[in-house]
């Protein structure tokens, strides 16, 4: 029985990543009076199927994967080639920890939040390593910005994840979901933690106002500048999976994993998965709106903003959780 989730979960997280990336792109476009990913459709089928090209992010990857891959002369070839693979692999492993509406492989055992956070950091870390190995000054500056951003963003991610863990008194994702099912979703009791987690998602996924590492008018594509062809496709794929993981992690931590019904039968699992996806789409909608309506911070401003505005929120949220924990309001 272990083989079913082993094979299914990466596929699910990849498809969810494509869906969320599509949504971010579409809402970004609609906020700007553009159409976003679009395809031509027969006139009679239009009312039925619409004209949205849902799989556009997948087509991007497919197109890149059969394009020529150029490796710069100045690059450290082994590191340059191996880093996208490792980051993709780490993203795949991280996807096993998420509970997709009760459907999970590694979500049950204790301390798995710590593992998950390590894997999430690992994905970004290997982006940076590959970029440094490329030897391009654009990547260099992108990496430096990304590293600076990481120091602040990871703290937000960890604090807000742990505030849920403190409140549920467990370090397993399944445990947190069960605790929420027993009482109420933690987004109600601790909205501050949810807020700081959203900020962390924006930072991790390089969405505005934190798209500082790949600001194209300043440093071309930041860490990804020298990548092309199938390595760029791999980096994109790992980014899509990371999108699914982070948004799913948010649902698990603050919205009871989207579990509407107890996961006893197959039908209940399917319904739970649909609820989970719907909640994910709502969260993605929120982050897309922020993405559309904000300009980019300069790195020092972004750093300061997180330090002075977002960190206090995260610290408050964890204090709130400790208070809940000790006065026993679960």
């Amino acid at each position, binding site marked *: 029985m272990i083989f079913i989730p082993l094979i299914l979960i990466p596929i699910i997280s990849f498809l969810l990543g494509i869906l969320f990336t599509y949504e971010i792109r579409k809402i970004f476009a609609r906020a*700007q009076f553009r159409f976003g990913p679009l395809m031509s459709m027969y006139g009679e089928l239009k009312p039925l199927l619409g004209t949205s090209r849902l799989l556009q992010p997948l087509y991007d990857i497919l197109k890149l994967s059969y394009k020529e891959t150029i490796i710069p002369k100045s690059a450290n070839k082994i590191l340059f080639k191996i880093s996208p693979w490792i980051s993709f692999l780490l993203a795949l492993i991280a996807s096993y920890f998420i509970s997709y509406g009760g459907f999970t492989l590694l979500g049950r055992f204790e301390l798995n939040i710590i593992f998950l956070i390590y894997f999430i950091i690992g994905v970004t870390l290997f982006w940076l390593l590959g970029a440094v190995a490329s030897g*391009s000054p654009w990547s260099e500056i992108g990496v430096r910005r990304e590293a600076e951003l990481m120091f602040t963003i990871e703290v937000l991610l960890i604090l807000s994840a742990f505030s849920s863990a403190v409140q549920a008194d467990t370090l397993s994702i399944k445990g947190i979901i069960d605790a929420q099912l027993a009482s109420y979703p933690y987004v109600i009791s601790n909205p501050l933690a949810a807020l700081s987690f959203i900020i962390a998602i924006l930072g991790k996924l390089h969405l*505005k106002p934190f798209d500082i590492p790949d600001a194209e*008018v300043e*440093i071309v594509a930041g860490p990804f500048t020298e990548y092309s062809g199938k390595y760029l496709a791999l980096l994109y794929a790992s980014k899509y999976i990371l999108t699914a993981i982070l948004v799913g992690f948010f649902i698990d931590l603050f919205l009871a994993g989207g579990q509407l019904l107890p996961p006893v039968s197959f039908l209940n699992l399917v319904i739970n998965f649909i609820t989970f996806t719907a909640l994910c789409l709502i969260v993605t909608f929120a982050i897309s709106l922020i993405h559309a309506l904000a300009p980019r*911070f300069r790195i020092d401003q972004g750093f300061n903003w997180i330090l002075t505005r977002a960190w206090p929120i995260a610290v408050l949220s964890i204090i709130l959780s400790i208070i809940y924990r000790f006065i026993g309001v679960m």
Partner: protein
Amino acid sequence: MIKLNEVLSELEKILSPNFKIVKLDMNGRHVYIETSVDKLIDAAKYLLSIDGRLIHITASDEDYKGLKLIHVYGLDHMDVNSHIILQTYLPRENAVAPSVSKLTYQVSWAERETMELLGIKFDGHPDPRHIFLPYEWPDPVESKAEEWKPVKVEGKCILPIGPYHPAMLEGGYFKVKVDGEEVIDVDIKVGFNHRGIMRLAEKRSFWRDIFLVSRICGICNTPHALTFVMAAEAIANITPSDRAQYIRTLLAELNRIHSHLLWLGVAGDLIGFKTLLMWTWKIREDIQDSIELLTGNRVHMDAIIIGGVRRDVNDQQIRKVEEKLRNVKREVEKLADIVFSHSIVRARTEDIGILSLQDAKNGGAVGPTARASGWKIDVRKDSPYAAYSEEYTTWDIVVDEGKDVFARVIVRVKEILVSIDICLQCLDALKRVSGPIKVEVKEFPEGETIRKSEAPRGELFYYIASNGSNIPKTVRIRTPSYRNISALIFMLKGYSLADAPIIIGSVDPCFACTDRVIIVDEKKGKKVILSYDEFMKGLALKKLEV
């Protein structure tokens, strides 16, 4: 405020005995003075000391008389319409003149251009490098090819922004030397697309030149055509009718609105505000539609001809354009609210790229860039042309004391509203003023003239000389971006790399108009935010140290 008569009497004392007024133009406000070479520096010292602007230095080939060196001084910001044009003749062989750029930075590029195009040597020029040609010319360019690659020198990284870069749509090369994130040195090489339009214009008739010069720049095409036509009309000694003047003003202002909206969008993109880009460009569509309605073309209007305009405007068109303009006004006011109060926009634009008033005067900034530094210069008020003077339309110059990028945003957004106002006044006037839209031109007698106009980016200057035929003998153009890009050296130093694109963008650079080079001295700045040398140590980066 100094008057032209006082300046002239003082100048006569300085230049005597070589002081000869050769021509008076524009009711005696444009004074053409012939003098000798050695007096030029004294005249420059005096005219700059009374806050005069050195608009341009150029030269023209006068056959057996030699090369005519022309210094154009503008005093019109102090006394309406006043200009002093100093002329002197140099021998055709080994022409040498004193360099004025020792005194003021603003003509540095003009002198380098004259050096390159006409071979006049300027004695004591601080930076006598090539301007259109590669620096290494006549050595083969390939020998220095590595200069165009990213390299790492003494712990500092040199980044190439350009010749092709996402921040710029046109070919320009900004060699930025950074220490961490901080810009410590900039070298700009432009001139990748030198088209020789001034030479081309001397090969075609006046009529064909109108369409040639409006192709210098796609965005501000109408001011180019308008200024050329005004100069040609001054030579042919004709005045267009009031109705034609109103239509010209309307078209020029529509051009300004669309240029400023375009700039606002690009500036938004440069600070990562993609949504602002799309919004402003959507609003701009209304302006493009109006232009299409009035002239038949969406971008290149080609509506202005010598003696008037090509097409008349009827009442139906007036109503439609009025409606569209009101719509644009509403949208721009909404947008201005968002832009002025958005905290991240303010954080990204306030207190960066500061250009002090003194630097603006020394660097010769023009247009919105100068007005954002608190300098109240606007050709439309200083030397009124078309229908900008008091008896035609009423409006005010927009000035801001902020001196930073945000001030430039404010000035441009407010100017959009002022321009809409002028357009509406013109449309009102067109309902009652009737008359011919064209005056016939008989001949272009021998003569020379200068004319200026306020293009969206600033003061646009034309010098035209005719030899009596239907082909102009000399055409000299000084575009506003020429000045504003050269003034960038005062804005870029010491700011973050992330700010470089918006600072460069804040002057609305138009490389199609420009093609020049500048240099910034290296400056020891603050510490880096994160010691990246240590961070990178042992990794592949050491391969960069070529």
